[in-house]
């Protein structure tokens, strides 16, 4: 079954929604594809329809995003394809794009004149001794459970890392009835404050964005949760599951650990297309380069939201609108002048949000604080490759060459998780990382053969 649209959008987060609404307003036939069943993206991961959570995301920081989501869901002229992963993307010689979609029901092809990749980001995976014990989560994974299903991991939880988001997650956990043993920041409070003050002046207009963190601190204080600074987590201890988190000041007994060092853009599809990329920022990963209309180096292929670098949900929304107008102008649904006029507000907003994102980047910069690995610490979980296997071949060769001889990055996740760590170990600023390969997600052979 093939169907054709003017625009295919990969990702139904704030960026994809904003672009879709803009395009739909301008009467362009738009399809939005997401591997989640419902729209919302990472920030508004929705509970299943059958499962109503009272007061879901009612916090006012989320209000504009929730409003956008409700409008998006009400817009029946936008074609929503949920529960489908885009596993392949190709630009045909005639300039049209073919997307290969995969779901438990098999494969499906979609064609479109323009494609927007708004695939979001994922937690930066940070290996440390003990990180593969049951009970260790990415903080984001923990939050996703909380948002979508109101599941709080049982027992006492430690959150650890460098990203202030862990304050919000900890507060959400205690508010949902969970127990947080401590929040450990690797960096000294002074380092965070200095970065905050140095850059805060540049991002004054967005300082309100820091309120949720301040409110979270108050919530944690009222629940008696310890927040420790200059307390870099060094190891997670336990025999068959998590028992304690270790930092230079001692061990904290706990049943679960959430690690929070920041986020990396999803980059498999743009890299598969050989779009030009750039190093995304302190956490690692790759952002797709784009022009002022969010068009990548591949003609007709647009990018928005965290795909272009980590900047938060509001920036994702703004960039989605810019991309929407850019695509609409290119397809002739609106004049260039009109498009330029209508995006100017979003551009200004986007720019100031990016300044705030740089502030957050600096505060959360994990680089000086990556935990030391032991010889037996796994770098690649999928293929169970430990540091001791990688170390002997760190002799100047490329990430691809290390992958070949060690299997680091050869597993189910296509190297999404271990690539930043390996690139850090290689320490070669010119290494382009693993060659991106089809398919972006595993897919049954039988589905591909028909």
């Amino acid at each position, binding site marked *: 079954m093939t169907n054709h649209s003017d625009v295919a959008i990969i990702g139904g987060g704030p960026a994809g929604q904003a672009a879709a609404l803009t395009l739909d307003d301008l009467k362009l036939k738009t399809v939005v594809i997401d591997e989640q069943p419902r729209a919302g993206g990472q920030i508004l991961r929705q509970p299943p329809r059958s499962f109503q959570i009272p007061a879901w995301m009612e916090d006012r920081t989320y209000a504009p995003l929730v409003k956008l989501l409700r409008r998006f869901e009400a817009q029946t002229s936008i074609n929503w394809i949920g529960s489908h992963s885009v596993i*392949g993307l*190709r630009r045909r010689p005639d300039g049209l794009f073919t997307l290969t979609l995969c779901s438990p029901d098999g494969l499906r092809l979609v064609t479109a004149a323009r494609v927007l990749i708004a695939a979001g980001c994922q937690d930066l995976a940070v290996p440390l001794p003990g990180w593969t014990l049951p009970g260790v989560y990415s903080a984001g994974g923990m939050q996703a459970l909380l948002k979508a299903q109101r599941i709080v991991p049982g027992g006492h939880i430690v959150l650890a890392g460098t990203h202030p988001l862990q304050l919000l997650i900890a507060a959400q956990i205690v508010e949902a009835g969970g127990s947080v043993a401590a929040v450990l920041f690797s960096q000294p409070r002074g380092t965070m404050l200095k970065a905050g003050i140095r850059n805060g002046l540049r991002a004054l207009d967005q300082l309100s964005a820091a309120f949720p963190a301040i409110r979270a601190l108050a919530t944690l204080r009222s629940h008696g949760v310890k927040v420790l600074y200059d307390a870099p987590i060094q190891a997670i201890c336990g025999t068959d599951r998590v028992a304690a988190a270790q930092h230079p000041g001692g061990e904290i007994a706990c049943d679960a650990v959430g690690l929070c060092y920041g986020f990396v853009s999803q980059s498999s599809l743009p890299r598969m297309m*050989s779009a030009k990329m750039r190093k995304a920022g302190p956490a690692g990963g790759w952002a797709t380069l784009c022009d002022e209309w969010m068009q990548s180096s591949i003609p007709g292929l647009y990018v928005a939201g965290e795909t272009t670098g980590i900047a938060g949900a509001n920036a994702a929304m703004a960039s989605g609108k810019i991309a929407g107008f850019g695509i609409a102008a290119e397809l002739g649904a609106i004049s260039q002048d009109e498009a330029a006029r209508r995006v100017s507000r979003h551009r200004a907003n986007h720019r100031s949000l990016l300044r705030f994102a740089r502030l957050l980047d600096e505060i959360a910069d994990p680089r000086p604080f990556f935990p030391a690995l032991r010889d037996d610490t796994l770098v690649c979980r999928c*293929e169970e490759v430990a540091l001791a296997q990688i170390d002997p071949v760190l002799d*100047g*060769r*490329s990430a*691809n*060459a290390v992958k*070949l*001889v060690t*299997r680091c990055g*050869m*597993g*189910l996740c*296509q190297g999404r998780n271990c690539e930043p760590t390996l690139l850090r170990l290689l320490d070669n600023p010119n290494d382009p990382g693993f*060659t991106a*390969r*089809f*398919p972006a997600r*595993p*897919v*049954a*052979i*039988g589905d*591909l*053969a*028909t």
Partner: protein
Amino acid sequence: MRKSDVLIVGGGLIGCATAWYLAREGAKVTLLDSGDFGMGASGQNAGSLHFQLERRFLENGDALAEQAARIAALSRLAISDWSSLEADLATDLHITMNGGLMVAETAEECALLERKITRENAEGLQTRMIDGDEARQIAPYLSEAICAAGYSPDEGHADARLVTHAIAIAAAKDGTVLRPRCRVQSIEKAGRKYVISTAEEQFAASQILIACGAWTAHVAAMLNLHIPLFPVGLLMNATERVAQAVPHLVQHVGRRLSMKQTHSGNLLIGGGWPSRMALDAEGRFALYRPPAVIESSLRDNLRVAIDVAPMIATISLIRSWTGITAISADQLPIVGEIPAMPGCWVAGGGSAFTLGPTFARLIAQSMSGKKREELEIVAPSRFSHLNSFMGQ
């Protein structure tokens, strides 16, 4: 200027293994590659050790098949080279030689198998024809649709991830100077010496080997020579890891298929399906960019695999990759000294994973003055006419 007895350009399997064989005999060898060793075809291939006549030789008429059968002599040597490689290197390369089946589904394919096997047996290869039931006894995963198979007891596979790397390490231990990430930019003949320049260094030797796989024609051009090796983009597919179930090499006589299970449990599915090579700004094949997957190749490759082993349908594909290898104007490899350019050797083309160690050993011996007759059928002299107006 760094002087050696032999300079080798290209650190794929052929280049690394030649360096190793030469160094073991005490020669001073320098080995250069523009990237990391073994990252060309030698690190991208399927790892099949196939000794039955290849399907590609059968699909273009009888005359070519007749000629190709002569490669069987080299295959016999390759069987013994692969049998001793792990012991010689004292390393586990996941070499398994549990036998290989080249299956047939139609009466026509059965007849083709029969002709092939007659030819192989005449050349001293121990293949035999078995019927569908016997094939399924040996390989229970085969479909009911398989009506016959050519069975070779020696076929199998090795881990292409490890082989070239291990040989490069062994070559270095025996004194070879390794220069990874040093692209050869020019080669000049100065009297009886060859001088090779990279961005940083110069090297000289009286003998050189060009073992640059798909890049061979470009590098030979530095000496104003034609070597008719053409780049070919191919497709490979890897499944998720599953319990060991396929201990053999499986091929198809009438359709493109090679299938095996790695030591780690991934099934590797290939068989010579094309991928689309990228073009550079001038419209020439861009050999440093990965070729693109061609959807119909992918679909049809996986279709054959399922037709042959139905259990594959429910296993997940985790990666399709593409790689570039070299094929010669007449499909046979090109291995030997270039008549117009004494001291300049070339080796490449064809299934040079299976035959790589053997080519390397024979070249190393020939370079040291012990001429090996087995290389005659692959000698570059058959293309001398291309170089009658070329050279220095």
